[in-house]
């Protein structure tokens, strides 16, 4: 079970979502991806996509206007 960080700070839609999709594709089942974002629309579309794909995820507000989305690859 490995953990990988993905720095998407300063990036706007749709870049964080596409980078998340690519990064998750390179992981194996059980691995965890931590995506750092500061674009509020990515806070909506990344979890939406992860939920649709059936991965486990959690959002945490780490500072004003900055979030971490933790995604566990389930399949």
């Amino acid at each position: 079970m490995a953990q990988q960080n993905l720095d998407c700070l300063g990036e706007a839609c749709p870049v964080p979502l596409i980078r998340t999709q690519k990064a998750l594709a390179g992981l194996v089942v059980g691995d965890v991806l931590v995506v750092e974002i500061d674009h509020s629309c990515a806070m909506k579309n990344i979890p939406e996509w992860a939920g649709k794909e059936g991965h486990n995820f959690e959002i945490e507000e780490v500072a004003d206007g900055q979030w971490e989305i933790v995604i566990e690859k389930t399949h």
Partner: protein
Amino acid sequence: MAEPTPQSASVFAAVRANDTFKALLVNPWTYVTGAVVLAMFNSALLASTGKAWGVTTSFAYWGAWAWEALGGNPRSWLYFNEVKPAFLKLSFFTDPGTLINLGVIVGALLACLLAGQFKIKRLKSNRQIVAAILGGLLMGFGARLAFGCNIGSLFSAIPSMSLHGWVFMPFMFCGAFLGSRLLVKYFM
């Protein structure tokens, strides 16, 4: 500026934790809520100014005013005489479109501050700067060729029962498709 006292900080934290405050000002609204509110505001705008919402025509005015300030003579241009003669009678503070654009910027800042999500973002790379400038130029130029952006030529056009909104829509999707391909290929 005075540091916030622990008491005022806790008051703000309590307000932010309030469910009504959260639902209205922190969490994103649903698309339907947003659509209904936008439709109501656009109707109010049409009733009060006689024109539905548009954004980019005023950008052309801003550019022309800047050019005029530098000594140019945009008032002689065909575009402002034949396409947008309204420009000749307007100034920065009497153009409703300009005031609405400023309102959008101030409103977005206010919404961001109230949600506690204001943050100055860093520029990640020179490539990001090039992408932003290129994208802005393409969108601005395209919006002038089409006599409007997705607001004036789509959002305001279709409810006005104008055919041009329906013509604009498929071509806007073509542009968005090409633009995202370019973004993924060269700027990621």
